[in-house]
């Protein structure tokens, strides 16, 4: 089975994130790391490949050249090949433009299964993958916490607000995995050292046949207008318990309609 895993390099969670007031976008100039739940997606792909004894795991990403670091981590874990779509013209792409570029890159791979991590820690909103699935015109399963395969289909168990669902989709399919699906492996030293030697392609948008008006800000349909401080949390109230503390809390909860 050929599995493509879409990964993203995001600002390192250890470093305080900030929005650059000049560009009004997330300041990505500092340290970056592989998006945590993408490591779960890579791990799942590796397990699927290893369980079947054959197949290929390709990691795909869209970003600046330094995103190769995130791809190398996936290669160090055991992925076979990496593809980075890197192009200055892609800067400022919103969901519409990014999903378009990624879908074109994935079409080239013709994978049986495309995996994403459900969420990006940089505020992606857990949405990119569904847009890509739609562009590829393939069925999708979100929030997968467990995956099994039969001939020609993938079945995913996932948690929703109401309980858990079991969904089956015909392959090729697009699946977003939740971080509860597995515990990603640590890359072995041999893996880290061997990662550099694995094939890493860097492609531009024009090599993917993407027209300039579908990339970057030109290809986007949303814009950032302004930044401001959020409204303050609201007044904090602090009271001493004089024996009626519990009652006061209940009153407060009732006021906020958090109890019947």
């Amino acid at each position, binding site marked *: 089975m050929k599995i493509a895993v879409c990964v993203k390099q995001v600002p390192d969670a250890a470093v305080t994130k900030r929005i650059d007031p000049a560009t009004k976008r997330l300041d990505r100039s500092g340290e970056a790391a592989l998006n945590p739940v993408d490591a779960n997606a890579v791990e799942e792909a590796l397990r699927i490949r290893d369980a079947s004894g054959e197949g290929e795991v390709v990691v795909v990403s869209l970003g600046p050249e330094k995103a190769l670091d995130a791809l190398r981590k996936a290669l160090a874990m055991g992925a076979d090949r990496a593809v980075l779509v890197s192009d200055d013209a892609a800067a400022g792409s919103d969901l519409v433009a990014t999903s378009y570029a990624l879908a074109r890159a994935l079409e080239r791979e013709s994978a049986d299964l495309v995996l994403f991590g459900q969420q990006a820690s940089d505020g992606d*909103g857990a949405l990119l993958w569904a847009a890509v699935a739609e562009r590829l015109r393939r069925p999708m399963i979100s929030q997968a916490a467990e995956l099994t395969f039969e001939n020609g289909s993938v079945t995913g168990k996932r948690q929703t607000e109401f309980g858990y669902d079991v969904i089956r989709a015909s392959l090729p399919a697009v699946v977003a995995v939740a971080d509860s699906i597995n515990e990603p492996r640590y890359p072995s030293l041999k893996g880290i050292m061997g990662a550099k030697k694995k094939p890493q392609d860097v492609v531009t948008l024009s090599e993917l046949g993407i027209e300039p008006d579908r990339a970057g800000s030109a290809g986007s349909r949303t814009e950032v207008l302004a930044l401001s401080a959020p409204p303050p*949390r609201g007044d904090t109230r602090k009271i001493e318990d004089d024996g009626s503390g519990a009652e006061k809390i209940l009153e407060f909860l009732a006021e906020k309609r958090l109890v019947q």
Partner: protein
Amino acid sequence: MTTLVFLEHHEGELQKGSLGVLGKAAGLGHPVSGIILGSGVEGLAADAGRYGAATVYVADDPRLEAPLPQPRVDALAQLVEEKGIETVLFAQSILSADIAAALAARLDAGLNWQLVDLEEQDGVLVGKQSALGDSVLVDVGWTSTPRLGLFRAGVFDPVETGAAGTLERLDVRFEEHSLLAEMLEQAHEETSGPSIEDASVIVAGGRGLGAPEGFGMVEELAKALGGAVGATRAVVDAGWYPYASQVGQTGKNVSPALYVACGISGAIQHKVGMQGSKVIVAINKDPNAPIFEFADLGVVGDVSQIVPKLTELVRARSS
């Protein structure tokens, strides 16, 4: 400006979040329609009207019975194109997020998410997006129509207008790929309580509980409020509660509607895991505990007195 609101439903009821968005949209002053998709759902149209929809589109089809996203994308795309709808709004849920994103791709339409408000500024629609762990508010816009907006869960309360909406039935033409996913089992309740990430109420305990036994009362209060139990790193390290419940920088990130912090000091390593909670109540006997700086209601007192009493009061109220 024609606006359509996707109305999610579950077990015969329209979801509060969707109705809230409907009310918000209606409040902007332009005619708003709602769309209900499913099987045997026509009866819900009346509610949609009552909560602000001037028109209620209903697509009733067995292929829409399971709450899967892709058939719904077909319905929405079809309606948007047929009626020239300019704005489509969603209330955040697992299903809605999938639909909104896929619809954005289908229509090449801009999607702004994590919205906490929506305004019209000089005839232009501007969304207010809460970003970076609620530390910054971003004004976002759309550069073309249709515009898609995904609101954070629970930002708006439904507003009953008492009006009746006009019902319009919709026949959906499904794409081939939209029918390639099948729901085999749906919405099975887990035997244990909600997992901490999905819970809308979390009652959490820290070292101020004094001893591991303190978690007994935390669990009781959580049960009474229908919520999950959380724990700080310090007590998990000390073995009082399992790692799966740890909230904080090296544990889980949660943003429930209510977070009750019992005996928790509120050091930043914990704060970053729960500061997005809508309402925070803190009980701690140390008046200088940092948590009082950001709790909506802080009670300086003895957790072992207050928590069991509160549990009793909550139970009494709901019976």
